[in-house]
């Protein structure tokens, strides 16, 4: 006979089966989204702190990657996405190489940033890069000083990228428009300048 282990109280059982019962702010779907986008089993984090100990951003800020890992597990979506420290990860992957659980905390941060962008939380420098790539194909486009230097080196004034072949730019724009990325960047920046 199977040994049934419970409290013998249906109401309490139901409450316990919902792992988010202890806080109304918790959204279990957040962890699922993070896992899917990051392609790492973020729920396996056992909070050892090796990630924070490896992090070049930690000693000079309040950014703690372990805290974001915990927020992921607990489904604390707003707490994670609203915290500006989310954008202090340099994506150096030291934490990922050292995680004793074989997880990729760096990719968890990337996933959380993706989720933040979905609700319009994003530092403005990221949006400007989007606009530059949409317009020129390059995040760091050429300029006149550099063109002159290139010619002196015997290189064409513009590299053989979209700079020399602008006919490729509409294709890039089509790809970005497929995801509505440029419109979104424009909208957020326009709302700000009002």
């Amino acid at each position, binding site marked *: 006979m199977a040994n049934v282990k419970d409290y013998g109280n249906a109401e309490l059982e139901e409450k316990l089966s919902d792992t988010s019962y202890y806080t109304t702010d918790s959204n279990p779907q957040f962890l699922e989204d993070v896992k899917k986008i990051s392609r790492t089993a973020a729920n396996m984090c056992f909070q050892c702190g090796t990630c924070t100990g490896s992090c070049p951003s930690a000693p000079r800020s309040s950014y703690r990657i372990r805290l974001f890992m915990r927020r992921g597990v607990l489904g604390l979506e707003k707490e994670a996405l609203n915290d500006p420290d989310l954008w202090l990860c340099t*994506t150096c992957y030291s934490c990922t190489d050292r995680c004793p659980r074989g997880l990729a905390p760096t990719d968890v941060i990337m996933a959380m940033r993706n989720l933040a*962008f979905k609700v319009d939380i994003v530092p403005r420098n990221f949006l400007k*890069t989007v606009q530059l790539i949409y317009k020129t194909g390059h*995040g760091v486009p050429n300029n006149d000083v550099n063109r002159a230097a290139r010619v002196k*080196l015997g290189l064409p004034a513009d590299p*053989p990228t979209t700079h020399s072949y602008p006919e*490729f730019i509409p294709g890039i724009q089509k790809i970005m428009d497929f995801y509505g990325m440029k419109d979104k960047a424009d909208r957020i920046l326009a709302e700000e300048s009002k």
Partner: protein
Amino acid sequence: MSGNMKQYAFFLGCIAPNRYPGCEAAAIKTSEKLGIELLPLKGASCCPAPGAFGAIDLKVWYALAARNIVLAEEMNMDITLICNGCYKSIYEVNEILKHNDELRDGVNEVLAEVDMEFKGSIDVWHLIELYYDEKICGVEKVRASVTRPLTGTKIAPHYGCHLLKPKKERHFGDTENPMWFEELIDALGAESVQYRNKMQCCGAGGGVRGFDLTHSLDITNEKLINVQEVGADAITEFCPFCQLQYDRGQVEIKEKFGQEYNLPVLHYNELLGLAQGMTPQELALDLHAVDCNSFLEKIV
């Protein structure tokens, strides 16, 4: 070109061609002497920047990187590149899409709009790994190409992050204290030096340079302190974005923190160019924010 030349589609990225064109010129010329011919990847764009772009929407990152890869697939040629950031985008997306049907189908749905299809038919290499690879080039061949040894110079290696890490998605082994880059530096007649926390990030990545410059430079400053401590004459790397962070960063650090290093920062291809007899003019070293003369005086 002779039939013995190995040909690659040369993915340029942004910072090398548009800020440090000497890296581009040097890569082409130095590789030619090592039996590697770099052909233009026409119509390529930004990789796109993994930190600044992947951070906000990975799907667009996959699709735009895939477009660059497909340009090389159409040339039926492997890609090589000279930037760690580009390596993360182009190498990693190539590998992910080769092995993940769901993501590949998603990307191909978008690429169909521009009459392209990701097939997964090519590989992606950083030029530095081709130099180190005995089957392609190897350290001895690099050594043999040197006509002006950089004797008497002490050079600090900076590996950067995205070529080696995350190690389980790469093929470079140890990421705590690798030594292979030192072999390539020593092959030029220079002396590579070890310093504290060698593998630490330059501080530029993940969009942090754009988001919080002071924070980003504080990381750079720590590395510069550690490099200066061992008396290096220059830093070398194989990532133009790290180069920009160390080079222009020194000017910004002087303004913000009042600390001054005057430590020249050279891409390995620029260093190799010097060792193969290229002049500073042929490498556009005057575009560097930190004057390279203190280093050049040691080798002439």
